């Protein structure tokens, strides 16, 4: 059981690393926000497996709901594509 939890944690950690890389390199900022939310989802899974359900309950609405929403509003008010 512990091995399964550790394996899932490792997969989630790898997924979050991949999502971080994609979020940094992406030129379309809207897509970058979605990659960032994907990374937060992986972190939520890790928090759950580390037996911190209180953190999961606050992390999901803030990191997957409110935080991308703030960025989407700000992107709408500024520019969607990173210059370069």
């Amino acid at each position, binding site marked *: 059981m512990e091995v399964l939890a550790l394996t899932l944690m490792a997969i989630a950690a790898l997924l979050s*690393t991949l999502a971080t890389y994609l979020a940094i390199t992406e030129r379309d900022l809207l897509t970058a926000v979605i990659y960032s939310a994907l990374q937060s989802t992986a972190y939520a899974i890790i928090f759950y497996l580390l037996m911190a359900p209180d953190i999961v309950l*606050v992390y999901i609405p803030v990191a997957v*709901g*409110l935080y991308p929403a703030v960025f989407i509003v700000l992107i709408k008010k500024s520019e969607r594509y990173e210059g370069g």
Partner: protein
Amino acid sequence: MKYERALIAAAIIVFILVLSYAVALGAMGAALPPPDLRELAKNYLKLTINPWMRNLTVMSPEAVTAIVWDFRGLDTFFETAVLYLAIIGTVAIYRGVYTSRKTVAEDEEKGGMSPIAKSVTKITLPMVLAVAIAIALHGHLTPGGGFQGGSTAAVILLLVLVVFSLHFSMHKGITKGSMLALRSTGLLGIAVTSVLVLILGLLVGCQAFIFQNQPKAYAPAGLPATLDGMLISGTLILFNIFECLAVAAGLTLTFILVLTHEEEIRSAMKGDKHE
């Protein structure tokens, strides 16, 4: 371009490897997590619900909420204060921006997103609100609490603001004024609850502390742990309810201000619009 991407990938990989190596070597203490419980943790676990030691217990089976609002209540009070200072800062920056124009979009059909999005939001609104209220009200029994419930409620209120357009939400009562009033009610509730037992103690003429919950030795005043057979853990349920109100209303208030049209903000900042 190619070079830059490779550099970013290499930087991430090096950072993770260095961090893992440092943790494996014991950079964050001898072992992570420590193999045995510390004395403080043992005491928290022993006292979080312990009907045989009524002078020391919190009477809440959820140790995290017991620590957050009782054992270390003052810490949480100042955390809440910091969050609300940030929201007050936002309100101060947007001062003079009146977002309550009632002339636009009196009916639901005009403005906002497509009917599909509106129907989905209409169905999910009561469900998410129910979950949020359940998280807040069960904060002293199961994982969760005021902040968790409040931010869940703020997500669906934000969805309503975006999907049904800002002006329609204003028409339905989600305005800057009403959210400010709700938020202030929540904050006032937290402030009053933190000194509630102190006031009770002063009224009956015995010793009491701020952030006191259950009766302690030498301070026999306290709130009841159960209400009609249900466990309410004294002040914890009150703190959770008020925190939920304050967080939901505070975050929604910020979103109302952020979603306000740019032209309205500019004209208010230039000072050519006074109501």
